[in-house]
């Protein structure tokens, strides 16, 4: 091959073709999707919590994409129905994840609706799940001697606390829990929608 220009054009052409297939056409196909009416709408606090979820790197260990029964027993594990593209309309960045060091969180709100549980779990995962390898996100909490009026005390078991200390949740922790409590996609969808061509 002696012609440099021809070579460059061919190299770009091949990648452009792949991009058309893998990026262009799916865009067209997924363009007219709408969020299902039952999808919970995100308020300000949930959106802030979503930012904390991103910052804390939750996606490195948690997916948000339960699979169909043909791919794995996700439903038997109580992680909810298979997800469909419409569940994610408007999500940027996407938080599908690719790793299950921890469980799938697409329907964590339905599974675990308790705000207190989430706060304790974030402060010290091993206080509620002894086997957990999740880091304790204590930077989202403050240690105090007396709980100030209007702040949220977290009822962490004594043996996980420094002597005499009490734990209160920062706004970030409450936001993150608000986001986790918004993750409920248990509304029913037509079976057909999983069979996207």
């Amino acid at each position, binding site marked *: 091959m002696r012609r440099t220009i021809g070579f460059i054009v061919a190299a770009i052409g091949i990648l452009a073709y792949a991009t058309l297939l893998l990026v262009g056409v799916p865009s*067209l196909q*997924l363009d007219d999707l709408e969020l299902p009416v039952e999808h919970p709408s995100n308020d300000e606090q949930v959106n802030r919590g979503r930012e904390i979820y991103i910052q804390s790197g939750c996606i490195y260990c948690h997916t948000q994409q339960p699979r169909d029964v043909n791919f794995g027993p996700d439903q038997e594990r109580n992680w909810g129905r298979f997800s469909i593209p419409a569940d994610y309309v408007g999500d940027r960045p996407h938080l599908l994840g690719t790793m299950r060091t921890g469980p799938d969180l697409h329907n964590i709100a339905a599974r675990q609706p308790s705000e207190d549980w989430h706060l304790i779990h974030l402060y010290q995962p091993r206080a509620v799940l002894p086997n957990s390898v999740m880091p304790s996100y204590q930077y989202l909490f403050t240690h105090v001697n007396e709980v100030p009026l209007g702040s949220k005390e977290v009822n962490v078991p004594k043996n996980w606390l420094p002597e005499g200390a009490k734990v209160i949740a920062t706004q970030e922790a409450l936001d993150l829990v608000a986001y986790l409590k918004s993750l409920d996609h248990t509304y029913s969808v037509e079976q057909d929608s999983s069979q996207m061509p």
Partner: protein
Amino acid sequence: MLPIAAVLLAVVFLVSILALLVLIWSISSGQFSMGPGNSSVIFHRDEAGKVEDPASTHRKRDQLQQLLVGSSRYTTPQPPPEEDDPNSRRQSDESTARATRYLLGSACFWLVLGSFFGLAASLKFNFPDWLNQDYEFTFGVFRSLHLNLVIYGWVSMAGMGVCLWLIPRLLKTTLGSDRFALMGGHLWNAGLVLGSLGLFAGKSDGIEWLEFPWKTDLLFAFGGALIGLPILSAIKRRKVKHLYVSVWYIGAAFVWFPFLFIVANLPIYDGVQHAIVNWWYAHNVLGLWITPFGLAAAYYFIPKVIGKPIHSYQLSLLGFWALALFYSQVGLHHLIGGPVPTWLVSLSIVSSVMMIVPVVAVAINHHKTMWGHFAALRLSPTLLFVVSGAIMYTLVSLQGSLQSLRAVNTVTHFTHATVAHAHLGVYGFASFVLFGSIYFIFPRLSGRNWISQRLISLHYALSLIGILLYGGVFFYGGVIQGMQMQDASVPFSQIVADTKPYLWVRTVAGALMTLGHLVFVGHIWWVWYAPKSKRSFVPIAKEEVAR
């Protein structure tokens, strides 16, 4: 929905037929029949049939020469007819010395830093309550810093440095001015520094492989283009009639990267579409940016060290185009079983399997060239690293094709096996080839020899044991994890508990590799700052540099 799929199938079918016709045409019209002669374009007149490894010692080089020239398999390559100035190689090397030194030096810095963040991230699984009071020290920060620093800091900068150094040698010309390359290097480093600060400040874009804030990403796009410019201009001013296959890989990589990087950073995607673009990008940056660097270096250093052209040159060109065609479409196998259109996943699985074609083409070339010469590995550090990397490339690529098959993927998906696979590729293949290349290049850049062959061997041993533990034992742990996840009767908390020993294996593997990097970079440091008497204990003669 259906019409789109139908139109698409027709398009894919037509393009495939067209590609087949082009292939048949190019074979019948003699485009491929360039003969092995063209592959000796990498040799200068008096290099034909001479071994070269500046990383080795005089005594070992003599043994290597004897071993290879004494061998009956050995044939003296014919230097191509356009060979001219015997001084040109020295001029080539000198024209890139400053910029290469800058890029490789930066890469080494990021390698050490990136390794420590990786090790710390791994330790956080073993000690989940370690460093949990400040955001800057959380897992999310360490994990994203590790990925971005080793990919954009270490592999990219080392790859660009090695390729920048190869280009004038391969084209028998000089770089012209190294100003653009240096400027590009500065911008690239600025991107890494600002990007890292952004991550510390919690400004992650939240997309795997593209965590750096998009504003700092602009610096990479410009920096990469600035480094690519002198390379493309050197190709224009080439003094060889034929472009060696390494030039193809390097030239294409610098064309592909901006394309990928810009399309992936466009702020127009959301939801599932964003996930699709994410994995299209993440896999392409491996296949069309990092892999070309590794292959370009391996295609140069293996034949150069043993002084013998590669086995089948035509095959290498076929391998190049097949890589471009198939690798660009494999990314979506990361979303098998996810909420994405089925046809898209199928397309990626087919392409992943078709990757066997370029991989086997490269494997035949690398391994057949080395065949019968494996004894040479103990005489040449460059060869040892590069050939290990090439073997790892074959293994990890075939593993990747297998892992994309649905039956295998349902097990390995979402597990540590995927992480182990990624490390086999980026570390076992790309980093090993780059280590070998730097061992070759550094004495030529600095005019100084490596001080200790033992330190080189130590680095090799640490890195090899590290990656074998990571890609072997930790991978096995991931497969166990995947099989348990497929079995609903095993509670999830049990699966987590069972991964713990393997997470320790990963930490040990990471510690070994990090230690290896300290040995490697420390050695470079020592050579560079040692008093003259020490570092030149086996001096490289000026004439040898000129050869």
